[in-house]
């Protein structure tokens, strides 16, 4: 097992309600590896036409 720590941005589309945000993020994060630790460390409006928000995520993955 090898661990890696990533710090990256993800879009939060306006179509995803806040109550579904966790599942939306997890469904994307697990594509990168086995999740050990993660959180949103910043959130910003991206000022696009659709009202998308930008999330900064810090996460540790185990790539088995």
């Amino acid at each position: 097992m090898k661990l890696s720590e990533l710090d990256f941005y993800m879009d939060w589309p306006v179509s995803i309600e806040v109550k579904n945000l966790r599942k939306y993020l997890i469904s994307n994060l697990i594509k990168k590896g086995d999740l050990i630790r993660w959180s949103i460390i910043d959130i910003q409006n991206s000022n696009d036409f659709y009202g998308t928000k930008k999330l900064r995520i810090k996460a540790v993955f185990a790539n088995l």
Partner: protein
Amino acid sequence: MEISPTIFIVPTGIGCEVGGFAGDALPTAKLLASASGCLITHPNVMNGGNLSEKDERIFYVEGYSLDRFARGEIGLKSVKQNKIGIIFDSDIEHQLFLRHLQVADACVATLGINVASYIRTKKPLGIVLDYNSSNVSGGLIEHPDVLIEAGKGLIDNGATAIAVVANFPNDSDLKQTNNYREGKGVDPIAGVEAVISHLISKYLKVPCAHAPALNPIELNEKLDPRAASEEIGYTFLPSVLIGLSNAPNLVELNNANQMVSVHPDQLESIVVPDGALGGEAVLACVERGLNIICVKNQNILNVSNKLLNYPNFIKVNNYLEAAGTILSFKKGINLKSIRRPLNSIKNVGFDA
């Protein structure tokens, strides 16, 4: 007995004014436990180096398992006493290792804790600190497999809870460490500590907590009282052993025959610092429509409700107000009835 089960989180490694140091949120945890009658919190809140306390209303649950509880995957079952096994990083130098063994013996002799066994890892865990990529404390270990293997060895020998003592490099940034000791910065090792305990929780599913092994550093005359509990002795192990001694069993909820003391469906609220709403436990509570009690507690993050727009959100100025809010939930008192101005009830009829 009336209770209002509540999760209390002070995220690790983000420099919270209350709880960002060495067990300095413990008095707050006791207050919130008094209000709720049942508080689920994590080691970072309760561990003050050599100082900690037990409270039958407080459930000591490692962060990864706490997230699983918030997601509704596990229940918590009270135990009278765990059999604790300790994993020691093989990189810990001999004298410091002996100090830790003596501390464990002291906890058995003086506190009546059941520390049953220990194991040394087959090779060093290989701590890698990271506090450069963002201001949030981070990092990882190079050899997670040896950690898991050691944990399995303890469980095979009857351990029901695991303490981990990892060796932290002496060349870690002294300026950053002193900033933390003087109450001005983020705990530089907190992120790696969380990774270590999350690995045990995720792969071995037992209560777990971590204490760093650090060689003594020079006296700092400007020490902040919030960091002072880490200056008391040679190790940070006692608080971990006290916390784990009766940390609840983690019960998988697909095991229908197991009784639990706290079921996640009983959960009513989560208390979290303002700006730190981006953790999984908070988002899981949002998913379930629970009360988010957001407390003004200065930290380096800015993930607030301004952009999340969660409706069931209660912002308070301090933990005293948070305790009052929980108490009002417990007693079924409408918060609006306490606050002013008090508006008339709305007409939602057909002609409104």
